[in-house]
């Protein structure tokens, strides 16, 4: 489809009908990427501006929300990279995937005999949960946010992040476990759960 037809009146109307309704979702994602409302604001504006300019590249009726999320994340990552030296970027990417994911969640062992159903999660205030999410490394955070908060399927997240589905699962499952362990430690500090001493059943 040529650029001309997509930036004519019908194309502009399409953008308003198809893309703008996802502004809330893009804002939520931007908040988790950028960490503060002002930074998220800027990120959202930049995202929609670029989306509008690139509208001819979007195939109507396909997953517009994912398309916008992709742009949002790419803008964010490019902003991050600009502040870093090359060796810092390489250092972060080396061995990030690390050892394989273990389906036996370490938090299960910690909570066993004390609160195996994890009711302690429900006692943690929202601000602390959000803070723990925001402190995750970006690839884990993005996978968790897109799956658990925005309901994207593995395949959608894979396309958005430009990685195989297996990598998405690894980042998602390990991201969740990391997040759970941070929240567990916080719950112990706050007395919502007693730290397991090894003598429970």
């Amino acid at each position: 489809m040529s650029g001309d037809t997509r930036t004519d009146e019908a194309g502009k109307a399409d953008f308003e009908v198809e893309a703008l309704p996802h502004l809330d979702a893009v804002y939520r994602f931007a908040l988790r990427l950028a960490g503060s409302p002002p930074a998220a604001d800027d990120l959202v504006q930049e995202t929609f501006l670029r989306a509008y300019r690139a509208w001819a590249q979007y195939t109507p009726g396909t997953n517009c929300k994912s398309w916008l999320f992709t742009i949002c994340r790419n803008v964010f990552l490019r902003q991050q990279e600009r502040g870093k030296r090359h060796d810092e970027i390489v250092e972060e990417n080396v061995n990030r995937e690390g050892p394989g994911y273990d389906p036996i969640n370490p938090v299960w062992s910690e909570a066993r005999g004390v609160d195996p159903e994890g009711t302690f999660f429900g006692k943690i205030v929202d601000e602390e949960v959000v803070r723990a999410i925001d402190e995750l490394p970006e690839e884990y955070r993005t996978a968790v946010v897109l799956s658990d908060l925005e309901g994207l399927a593995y395949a959608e997240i894979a396309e958005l992040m430009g990685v195989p589905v297996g990598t998405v699962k690894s980042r998602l499952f390990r991201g969740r476990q990391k997040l759970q362990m941070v929240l567990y430690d916080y719950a112990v500090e706050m007395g919502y759960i007693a730290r397991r001493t090894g003598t429970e059943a």
Partner: protein
Amino acid sequence: MSLFERIGRLLAGGRFSGGNGASGAGPVGSSEDETISCMEAVTFLQEYLDGELPEAMEDKVESHFDVCARCYPHLQLEESFRAAVRRAAAGRSAPPELKSRVAELVARAERE
């Protein structure tokens, strides 16, 4: 043996393993009639909760957590975690000022 485990054994015709690896279920990808082990159930727990399992495996995983007293708390813990995450961060709307600003930006871009 708990009541749940006894029911499990009855349903599985004695092949309900309790996770010792010696079950009749064999490698992942059990045949139609076989139930799954605890190890398989927890291996697929995340995908099950994400709705990403094919229907046949989804049914097997669900049945396992229905009958296994040892595994069921793991499911509850994962659900408790997900509920806390959703409650803390889901569904927020963008501020109205941001919506106006974006509409303005798009209108300006349209005129270019």
